[in-house]
């Protein structure tokens, strides 16, 4: 499936240009596969690492088929994993996916303000991507940062105590 952003909304269309695996990316993927001993049982870890290699933090269709051929593993297993696990994606995300915890411990600590402020600052709704492809908002379940609630997580790093709009803006400014 190929994707294009139209007004911040992701559209699947055959007309979009297909993701191209450059030689450089292929080498990097091969390295990830080596690090995982070319072991098909490690596919989840492989996909997490490969996803990090791609600007928009997802596993494009050609990349999935590439991994399937090289491991080897059935591409159906890869697709199942990509759509099953929260942290994996089969469609483009963004350079900085802003993951907002929507579980109870954060919500009762007013993560709604956090949520509204992030939407306001970035100008997108959850699932949409900013015009420059840099930010997207994702609502995620508890990532175990309840002691610093309300919190967000961006590319693996947790930012906590985001209990005022100013703190939230300051946190986002780091990435702008």
């Amino acid at each position, binding site marked *: *499936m190929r994707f294009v952003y139209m007004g911040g909304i992701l559209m699947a269309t055959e007309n979009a240009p297909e993701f191209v695996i450059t030689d450089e990316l292929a080498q990097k993927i091969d390295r990830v596969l080596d690090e995982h001993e070319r072991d098909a049982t490690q596919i989840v870890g492989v996909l997490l690492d490969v996803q990090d290699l791609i600007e928009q933090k997802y596993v494009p269709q050609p990349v999935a088929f590439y991994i399937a051929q090289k491991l080897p593993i059935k591409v*159906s297993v890869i697709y199942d994993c990509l*759509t099953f696990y929260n942290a994996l994606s089969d469609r483009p995300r963004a350079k900085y996916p802003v993951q907002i915890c929507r579980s109870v411990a954060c919500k009762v600590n007013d993560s709604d303000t956090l949520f509204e402020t992030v939407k306001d600052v970035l100008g997108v709704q959850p699932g949409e991507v900013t015009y420059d492809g840099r930010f997207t908002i994702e609502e995620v379940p508890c990532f175990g940062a309840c002691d610093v609630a309300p919190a967000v997580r961006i590319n693996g790093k947790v930012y906590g105590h985001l209990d005022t709009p100013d703190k939230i803006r300051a946190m986002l400014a780091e990435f702008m």
Partner: protein
Amino acid sequence: MAETNDTKKTEMVHLKINNIPVEVPAGTMVLAAAQKIGIDIPHLCYHPDQAIKAKCRICSVEVKGSRKLSASCTTVVWEGMEVFTDTQLVRDTQVGILQLIMADHDKDCLTCPRNNHCELQTLCARFNIQMPNLPDVTKMRTTENTNPAIVRHPSKCIKCGRCFRVCKDVQGVEALTFAGRSSDMIVTTPYNLPLEKTDCTFCGQCSLVCPTGAIVEKDDTQVVLDALQNPEKHVIVQVAPAVRVALGDAFGYEGGAIVTGQMVTALKMLGFDKVFDTNFSADLTIMEEGAELLQRIEKGGKMPMLTSCSPGWINFIEKHYPSLLPHLSTAKSPMSMFGAVAKTYYPKQSGVPVKNIFTVAIMPCTAKKFEAARPEMGRDGMRDVDAVLTTREFIKLIRYVGLSFKDLPESQFDSPLGTGSGAGAIFGATGGVMEAALRTVYEKVTGKEAKPLEFNDVRGFAGVKEATYDLGVRKVKVAVCHTLLNARKMMDRLEKGECDYDFIEVMACPGGCIGGGGQPYDTTNEIRKKRIASLYEIDKSLPYRKSHENPDIITLYKDFLGEPLSDTAHHLLHTTYHQVHKLYEFK
């Protein structure tokens, strides 16, 4: 006691189901134990030939001493167990689960291909399902019908996983997968690709096990009905050997019943101008394939030779083992040979202009729809086989015209393409093509009839069978396998040079064509075995049991084809294969 093995007792377990004492062998599941005393515990994901999934949960029952309900498909009986299948709690749960399924199911039952033959519908009728409060949460998803064989209606999927299991565990293909989770979980292809772009071979086993209308064969009944109504068309039909031992299932016969006579009558009453037999062209296939085998042996051709009758198998090897394509016999399948003869020899013989001839094939198979659509299977822009119907579609036609099948008299196939030998009949069983070929090849090489004529080593339901036969001048080593998982194992060995066979028969479906993806619903391995036995019974009952003795075949060669592998035969009865390129190929 000499018969210790036969009399060895399995440990028996005693339990009570709804206070009725039951005795079953240890290891039996509650679902099966209940069946033994005539209680049908509702089930959807359960399938007797598949690994236990325990996903649908509708078979939940109460077991005394257990805090929760137990899924009877996966609960093993124990001594002194007390099971209750009809308490208020069990009923509420079973009905509740059905309501949950129905709230997420495209309920266009009246226009559904499975209408009246749907396991979900049957359960809803049984439980008198009402839909009081639950909102309809069905996500309408696009129907996929871009290939000639299989149609997917994802909105009718109840996520039971039967299709996934058969595709993975029996066929080793894994074209289908679960994807997503929670209420968004679906059964689909990788990246929702259309089936033809996946590893799918169109074997149709998924459509055979699907309990609803989520995966069905592409319906061509209307095409055939239209042709039958068209006064310009001379519509002739061929029926595969496996159909006559399966068709009866839908009309109240015991599994494996031989209904050839009624079947022919039904076809004539449907309005077909001529009713012919694929057994005839199965004999023709043996003439060509047998000659090809001998030629390869004598002239040092690519060995071992692989059979080429099963279209699911052909799709499989073209996609997955293109380097092995030279091993495939170039002989077309019986269906396509029939089509070629029907559009060349038959017009000459009958005087009907070829442009008026419409050929229909009734097949146990969904992949045959794909085979018939191949450009190689025709000439001058015309298809040799104009329409392929599965056994299931044939059943629909019989119902459509309102025939009381069981009451029909028996009648005979028409001439000249209607006589088949016993060798042609057993094509429908795993090992049958091999045995048919051996009967002819043995006689051609040794000059005498094989005694006995039955090649028992290649018979039976084992996944892989092998045997060596002494033809005097040399021995031939053969192997037979069925299901694509076994085919894959065999091809992996072949690739590594570990197959010292001369001839390998491969059938895509379990049991061979009698277990094909287009056969009647509720086909199980038990029923497959009965159908196989029936084919051997037909074989024994026929006056000719070797393909080369079939008088119509002798005439065809004399009048039209000349010799096996002649130029005409090559032109009409042989084909070529092509590598099917994968969506992506990386170096």
